[in-house]
């Protein structure tokens, strides 16, 4: 038999009601409506693991991973289907059972070994190896209650890796202990596999899954939603989920992507890149994705020692296209939309962004730095998490040719604010100095002056429905709902401008007023400046 573990069509449900107790039984007090309510922890799960292979099990909390292990262990029976283990199994689960505080380390090794099914003889003959592996020979005669949690975890792992089990079920335990001991555990597990041992590993550490496992399955709501080579499954899972439940620590190691469309201003570009490097605390976690036009070779192939800079070269296109191309070429967890006429002035700006990112558990926010120009008023350089980018679908709509992307994003988050979730974060002490007109107005005019000054106004008005839908998706993500509920349907009647500003009940009143005044002002300007440049499609 080459299959070490075979699960066929496993189903398992739990009753949702609380245990009734004697009183409940005597009084017949089981509420009728909950009597049949069941939570399906597993529905039709098939697993096959070949001898000598390692299977990774991933998925969000409550997806059925622990239930699957418990059934494999025989701790609970499945409702339907069967699980067969061909071999001796031992488990190391995060609960931490089997150790007694009042016993010494040595006594615990014996008791735990016995629980695992080892005979006294087996334990005795391996005791020295276990003690040596744990690196705690000196403290094994002290009572366990004097041990730290990390020491207990080390001892547990040492016993289990020396047990004669040929199938190991491990749930999220390699995260304890220091980094060096973790590596030692991983090496020991590799050796265990090499000698023909079978491993089932539940972990939230995708790196661990990818490096240790051959195959992986991903569970969600009790079903296998993805399976295949471990590295691929882990990568897909990671892409899908960066969000609630991810640890603070992960947030503090977030990669930052600066998106930077540029044209014809290599000296500004260089100055920006140098300020990025000079002011970063951890430049190794920062990347810059530059978009340069194919006909603008002066902006191609910039290099700054110590900073990851990638240049995407493409045709001339809209600002939305540029930003989107940069976004698609970036890998960071935090995305910052920057300009080449910016100088980062704040030392450690990147850590400040990570702190903010880590603090936002669900990663739903629109942050923006102080540009010393518009300040709190406008998110000129929006900072978004990858989660928000994914939820928005098209965070920088291609339809915008040159402007209004900042307004567009701000508007979405104003809608969210109106729904009780103020997720706009103004980072006043992170200074992205916007040189703007101070950096040679001539260039600016030559390059951007050709575009239609008012062309994006209508786009902004037209895209109200999209913004509303985007806000609904963010709302659903914050409140943990599977499918977004639509916000109020767009009322079709009054003139577009009024509908989008003053009459839009999804927006805070102050923002409605500001939009209205802003558009009135722009329309006046449009009249004054004449209609000459306007009618380009």
């Amino acid at each position, binding site marked *: 038999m080459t299959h070490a573990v075979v699960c066929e069509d496993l189903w398992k449900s*739990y009753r949702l009601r609380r*245990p*009734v*107790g*004697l*009183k409940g*039984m005597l009084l017949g007090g089981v509420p009728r409506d909950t009597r049949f309510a069941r939570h399906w922890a597993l529905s039709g799960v098939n697993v096959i693991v070949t001898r000598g292979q390692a299977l990774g099990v991933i998925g969000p909390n409550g997806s059925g991973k622990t239930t699957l292990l*418990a059934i*494999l*262990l*025989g*701790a*609970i*029976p499945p409702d339907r289907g069967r*699980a*067969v*283990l061909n071999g*001796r*199994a*031992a*488990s190391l*689960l995060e*609960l*931490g*059972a*089997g150790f*007694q505080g*009042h*016993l010494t380390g040595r*006594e615990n090794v*014996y*008791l735990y070994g*016995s*629980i*695992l*099914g*080892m*005979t*006294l003889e087996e334990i005795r003959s391996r005791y020295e190896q276990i003690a040596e592996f744990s690196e705690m020979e000196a403290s094994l005669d002290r009572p366990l209650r004097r041990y730290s949690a990390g020491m207990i975890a080390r001892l547990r792992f040492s016993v289990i890796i020396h047990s004669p089990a040929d*199938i190991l079920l491990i749930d999220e335990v390699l995260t304890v202990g220091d980094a060096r001991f973790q590596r030692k555990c991983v090496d020991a597990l590799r050796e265990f596999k090499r000698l023909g041992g079978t491993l089932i590993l539940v972990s939230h550490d995708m790196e661990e899954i990818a490096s240790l496992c051959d195959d992986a399955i991903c569970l969600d709501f009790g079903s296998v939603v993805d399976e295949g080579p471990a590295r691929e499954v882990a990568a897909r899972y990671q892409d899908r989920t960066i969000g609630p439940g991810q640890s603070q620590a992960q947030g503090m190691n977030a990669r930052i992507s600066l998106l930077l469309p540029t044209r014809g201003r290599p000296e500004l570009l260089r100055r920006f890149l140098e300020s990025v490097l000079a002011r970063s605390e951890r430049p190794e976690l920062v990347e810059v994705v530059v978009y340069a036009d194919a006909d603008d070779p002066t902006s191609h192939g910039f290099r700054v020692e110590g900073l990851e800079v990638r240049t995407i070269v493409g045709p001339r296109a809209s600002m939305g296209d540029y930003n989107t191309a940069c976004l698609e070429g970036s890998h960071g967890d935090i995305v910052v939309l920057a300009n080449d006429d910016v100088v980062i002035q704040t030392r450690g700006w990147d850590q400040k962004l990570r702190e903010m990112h880590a603090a936002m558990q669900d990663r739903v926010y629109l942050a923006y730095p102080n540009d010393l120009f518009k300040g709190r008023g406008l998110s000129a350089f929006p900072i978004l998490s990858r989660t928000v980018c994914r939820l928005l679908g098209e965070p920088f709509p291609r339809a915008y040719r040159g402007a209004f992307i900042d307004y567009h994003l701000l508007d979405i988050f104003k809608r969210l604010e109106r729904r009780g979730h103020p997720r706009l974060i103004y980072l006043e002490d992170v200074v992205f100095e916007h040189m703007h007109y101070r950096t040679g107005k001539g260039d600016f005019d030559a390059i951007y002056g050709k575009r239609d000054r008012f062309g994006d106004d209508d786009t902004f008005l037209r895209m109200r429905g999209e913004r509303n839908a985007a806000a609904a998706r963010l709302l659903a993500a914050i409140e943990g709902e599977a499918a977004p509920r639509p916000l109020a349907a767009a009322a079709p009647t009054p003139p577009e401008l009024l509908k989008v500003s003053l009459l839009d009940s999804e927006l805070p009143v102050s923002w409605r007023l500001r939009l209205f005044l802003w558009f009135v002002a722009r329309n006046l300007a449009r009249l004054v400046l004449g209609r000459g440049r306007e009618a380009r499609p």
Partner: protein
Amino acid sequence: MPSVERSPRQLAEFLYLLTRQELKARYKGRFLGYVWALAHTFALAFVYWIAFKIIMGLDVTNYSVYLVAGMFPWVWMSVGVTSATRSFVVNALLIKEMGLAHAILPLSNVMQEMAHFVLALPAVIAWVVLAGGYDAAISWLWQIPLMLVLQVAFVYPIALGFALANAYVRDIEYLLGIGFPLLFFATPMVYPISIVPEPLHDWFELNPLHALMQSWRSLFMEGALDPAQAAYVAGWALALAAVAWTLYRKLAPRVGEVV
């Protein structure tokens, strides 16, 4: 489907380690650990002696020996069952993590209390011989071990049954806290069965706990156990074993879900 194969020998070793661990916990770090364990039961016997002998004037020959010979087996039985009842709940982690909803857990509790009893036996025998003036009998050498086996056989199925039931309905352990004192006085422990009034007398005779305790007392006070009483207890033990086994087969697989 137990994932861990256990040979009888491995089970015995496991039982030994579990039991030893508990004994160590009780006696370690206490200078007078052994004395405390004895003093508790002797003190209880003393209280009953004052109350029934001195105050109420109960007329039983060698009342203090009658009390002591019954109290120690009773404490073993009641404490063993009570702690065993909690064994699945207390070891919930082991059960969830190791799939160890094993019949050996309550057995370990019964064995621990037996160990206390065995350790107390020299003191009990000393009391019987010195205070009661009875002669130590050679037959004790085989009859005492026989009684130990008999009591384990009788108590363990009860302990296992309650442990399983308590995993599902937590009230059982509190119920036992009330039940055992009631049972204590419903069993001729501090009074002889001879003073029970006639219509109730036969019912009291049916109580297997009375038969068990009477066996111990006749062992100590008459030098030999009463074969009829011992056989009656053995019969009960068999019947209880059948019930407990059925319960175990039915309830044990899902213990991991409910603890």
